[in-house]
């Protein structure tokens, strides 16, 4: 019988209490009637199955009953139901959307074999990371911790002979890269190591996209030669549609040539290295081994690699580093919103539980046990949460397009975040937790109330422990909303600060077009210079064009190209690096971008190779190397030892974007470039216009085609788009956070309002007595307001501390705004004051209007 008693626990407690005893006696009678071991065994099996089946049925009956009851109560108070559902939807929607993006960027496995063992390896000078040089890579490859290690670097090609000339992004890789990623070509094969000997004439592998768009998905492409940068290269393979490495843009893979592999220059750091850990080897173990190898390299190259270590980063993290903090902040904010939403709903339900105490009393009198009341209450919470959850998923779906801008472009995955089964499971779990979070306290309270007794008419509810719980909830809401307000405020201040930074050049009505000028044809000045002249003359003649010029690359688009400089008469030691961002420009560049010439002159067409080498430097360059001296006429060198004479000084430019510090800048005359400096050839055509810049594109295309029919135009952008792209992810984040903070603010105000309203209605009698005893209305107002401000103060103070900690954690996003920024904190404090005032207003007025006579009458 003990077994049967245990089985009975499958039934709801109320059912068990009601019928358990009799059921036990029936089963006992049955057992007595049954003779024989086998018959008894059959009886037990039968009974077990029967109990399980009936228990499920009874639970289902109760659920249906509770659902019907919930439907009735919710339709009876649609305002309450709607508020609760909307609040939940906001909370769950915010979290679902944040999760779908965070999961996409940070959690999901990369689509490569053994992705969790892939790591990125960096040279690590103090306080940063660098790409890698060939000799260092060769040394690293001796490490035993890795199953494989491969290197790659960016490249780009002009593809001609397939319709309009195209600029294709490429990646030069070592032969072991693809086997390491465990991806097979869709057509043909990948490289074998022996092909590295062919160098720049070797075979190529195409991306699916370029195969589809440029070669019409030609099934016989393998073995065909194509023209890249003017030289024929044989296609040996096509990668599958969903393969991207290292970025989504890469259209062509080539093999790193044997000459490059053998290079000995430790300063030529432009390779990227990834490794695959041996199974069972941890990242820490690999890092320890790499540390030893790093030390060996330091001894070998004491000058160049002094203090340079090795950084081993999981590949997953490496791709998403730039977004990690943004997304963490977003997820934290979303969690805050949900927390506030839950606190608010718990409070609403608590308050409603109190107003429904008579109904509960009646149901108790009718025999509803505590378990039934708790269950009923939880069912209601779950129904509200579920409806909110469904709506929340819709909210997330609507918010996704905006949040997708937070996905870094470096992520080698083509699709965008979506509401997929994984996200739906998250939303479902979150919904269930939300239901528990806001339902448990009120449910427990509604049951506990049975013990309080004294529910006779006129008993005043509230007070004591119950009010304490509600106050704690409101305080938590205030606290979370303070954290959100301050975080959003700090990030907004950072965004404004960045946006108000003067980049040093004008962005309005400036159009940028890229012409790559690669191939043997442009290796000589006799071909290059006429191209520049023809294009620039043609463009300047187009109506609406104010000025035009060529530069190696416009600011922000290219942030590298930093050269060591050797100012005349100054000794240099490593560690006090003297360097500058170097660019070659045609005359008129400064005028076109509105960079002021402070002293001296622009470069000119007469600065020919045979003439003295000239340079225009930025003010910071002059100030750093010749402080308080006239820089004009001073000379400095680059590692190529050719001396340059300063002929002009121009304003400083934020080459790395408005949010980052730049090296000083040097501009060199376009005719004084060496033929082999192909990377630095002026390739960006900069046009300043008096008409909307994009209207000029057709005319410019025509002019470029006339100058060179095989020259593709790529990367057409406006300068203002380039600048605003720098802050695009930030401004999305700030917009989302401000929206979250606004919701939090509103919810907290509603929370204060709800609690005070309740206090006022439950203390009507007391207020009446006070007034009858001569209390002034101002004293009553003080009484209520005091409670509101106490609630707020108790929440605001710890909220500010938490916000400060959050600010410290995301300091690198703050662009120099202090985590304890006074203006933000004062602003948030003021907003909390407003929030408390708004929340307290109506209840306070109601308290002040209490008429002692009616207060008594209502109570008797």
């Amino acid at each position, binding site marked *: 019988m003990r077994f049967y008693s245990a089985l009975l626990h499958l*039934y709801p407690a109320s*059912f068990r209490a*009601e*019928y358990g*005893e*009799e*059921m036990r*006696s*029936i*089963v006992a*009678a049955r057992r007595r009637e049954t003779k024989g071991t086998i018959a008894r065994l059959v009886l037990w099996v*039968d*009974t077990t199955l*029967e*109990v399980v*089946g*009936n*228990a499920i*049925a*009874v639970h289902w*009956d109760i659920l249906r009953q509770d659902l019907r009851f919930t439907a009735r109560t919710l339709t009876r108070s649609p305002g309450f139901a709607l508020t609760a559902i909307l609040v939940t939807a906001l909370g769950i929607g915010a979290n679902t959307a944040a999760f779908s993006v965070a999961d996409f960027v940070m959690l999901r496995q990369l689509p490569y074999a053994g992705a969790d063992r892939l790591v990125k390896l960096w040279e690590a000078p103090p306080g940063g990371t660098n790409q890698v040089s060939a000799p260092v890579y060769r040394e690293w490859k001796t490490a035993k911790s890795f199953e494989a290690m491969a290197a790659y670097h960016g490249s780009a090609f002009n593809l001609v002979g397939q319709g309009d000339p195209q600029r294709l992004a490429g990646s030069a890789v070592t032969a072991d890269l693809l086997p390491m990623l465990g991806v097979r070509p869709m057509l043909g094969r990948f490289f074998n190591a022996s092909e590295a000997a062919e160098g720049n004439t070797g075979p190529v592998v195409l991306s699916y996209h370029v195969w589809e768009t440029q070669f019409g998905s030609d099934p016989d492409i393998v073995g065909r030669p194509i023209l890249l940068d003017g030289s024929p290269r044989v296609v040996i393979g096509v990668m599958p549609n969903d393969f991207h490495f290292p970025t989504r843009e890469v259209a062509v893979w080539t093999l790193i040539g044997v000459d490059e592999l053998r290079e000995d220059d430790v300063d030529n750091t432009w390779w990227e290295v990834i490794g695959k850990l041996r199974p069972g080897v941890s990242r820490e173990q690999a890092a320890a081994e790499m540390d030893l190898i790093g030390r060996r390299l330091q001894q070998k190259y004491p000058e160049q690699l002094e203090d340079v270590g090795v950084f081993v980063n999981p590949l997953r993290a490496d791709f998403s580093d730039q977004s990690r903090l943004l997304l963490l902040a977003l997820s934290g904010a979303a969690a805050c919103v949900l927390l506030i939403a839950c606190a608010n709903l718990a409070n609403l339900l608590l308050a409603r539980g109190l107003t429904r105490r008579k109904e509960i009393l009646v149901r108790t009198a009718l025999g509803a046990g505590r378990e039934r009341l708790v269950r009923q209450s939880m069912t209601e919470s779950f129904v509200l949460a579920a409806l909110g959850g469904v709506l929340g998923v819709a909210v997330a779906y609507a918010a996704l397009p905006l949040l997708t801008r937070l996905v870094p472009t470096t992520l080698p995955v083509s699709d965008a975040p979506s509401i997929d089964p994984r996200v739906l499971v998250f939303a479902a779990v979150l919904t269930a937790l939300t239901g528990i979070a806001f339902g448990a306290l009120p449910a427990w309270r509604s049951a506990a109330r049975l013990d309080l007794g004294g529910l006779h008419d006129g008993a005043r509810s509230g007070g004591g422990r119950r009010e304490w719980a509600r106050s704690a909830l409101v305080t938590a809401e205030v606290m979370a909303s303070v954290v959100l307000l301050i975080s959003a405020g700090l990030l907004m201040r950072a965004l404004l600060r960045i946006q108000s930074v003067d980049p040093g050049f004008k962005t309005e009505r400036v159009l940028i077009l890229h012409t790559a000028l690669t191939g043997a044809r442009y290796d000589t000045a006799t071909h290059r210079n006429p191209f520049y002249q023809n294009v620039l003359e043609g463009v300047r003649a187009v109506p609406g064009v104010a000025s035009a010029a060529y530069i190696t690359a416009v600011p922000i688009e290219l942030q590298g190209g930093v050269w060591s400089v050797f100012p005349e008469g100054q000794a240099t030691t490593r560690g006090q690096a003297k360097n500058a961002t170097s660019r070659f420009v045609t005359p008129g560049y400064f005028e076109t971008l509105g960079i002021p010439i402070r002293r001296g002159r622009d470069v000119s067409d007469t600065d020919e190779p045979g003439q003295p080498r000239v340079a225009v430097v930025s003010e910071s360059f002059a100030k750093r190397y010749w402080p308080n001296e006239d820089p004009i006429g001073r000379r400095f060198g680059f590692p190529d030892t050719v001396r340059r004479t300063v002929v002009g000084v121009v304003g400083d430019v934020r080459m790395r974007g408005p949010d980052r510090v730049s090296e000083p800048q040097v501009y060199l005359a376009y005719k004084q470039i060496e033929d082999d400096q192909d990377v630095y050839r002026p390739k960006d055509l900069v046009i300043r216009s008096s008409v909307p810049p994009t209207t000029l594109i057709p005319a410019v295309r025509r002019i470029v085609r006339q100058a060179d029919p095989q020259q593709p135009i790529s990367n057409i952008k406006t300068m203002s788009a380039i600048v605003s792209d720098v802050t695009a992810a930030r401004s999305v984040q700030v917009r989302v956070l401000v929206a979250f903070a606004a919701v939090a603010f509103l919810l907290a105000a509603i929370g204060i309002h709800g609690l005070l309203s309740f206090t006022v209605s439950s203390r009507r009698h007391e207020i009446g007595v006070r007034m009858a005893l001569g209390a002034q209305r101002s004293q009553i107002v003080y009484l209520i307001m005091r409670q509101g401000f106490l609630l707020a103060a108790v929440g605001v103070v710890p909220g500010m501390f938490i916000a400060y900690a959050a600010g410290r954690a995301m300091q690198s996003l703050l662009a120099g705004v202090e985590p304890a920024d006074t203006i933000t904190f004062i602003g948030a404090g003021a907003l909390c004051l407003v929030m408390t005032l708004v929340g307290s207003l109506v209840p306070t007025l109601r308290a002040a209007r209490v008429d002692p006579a009616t207060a008594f009458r209502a109570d008797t």
Partner: protein
Amino acid sequence: MPYTQTNVDALLPLPAATFHILIALAKEDRHGYAVIQDVEQRTGGEIRLSAGTLYRSIQRMLEQGLLRETRDRPAPELDDERRRYYRITPFGEAVARAEARRMAELVKMARAQGLVLGKV
């Protein structure tokens, strides 16, 4: 309990267990185990309600107003005070009658099609 035809019809057709319990209580009040025994006897041992099915049905029937618990108890020497006795309500009778009528109609229809042999 006041009842209308609509209320009665809403409950039809009755689950088999419910109908058997109503029949068992038609003539006299019984406690749970007695209901099981009565059903078993009447059906020649074919239907043996389990304790769970019985009380789940009883719970629902109480809610629907087909039964009520009665305080009239048998003589103390025959009584077990842990037992509860159930009595059919007028509404319960009406529902049982309506169910019987519904079944009779069905049988009539089946007979008209030659599906029922002999006298039932």
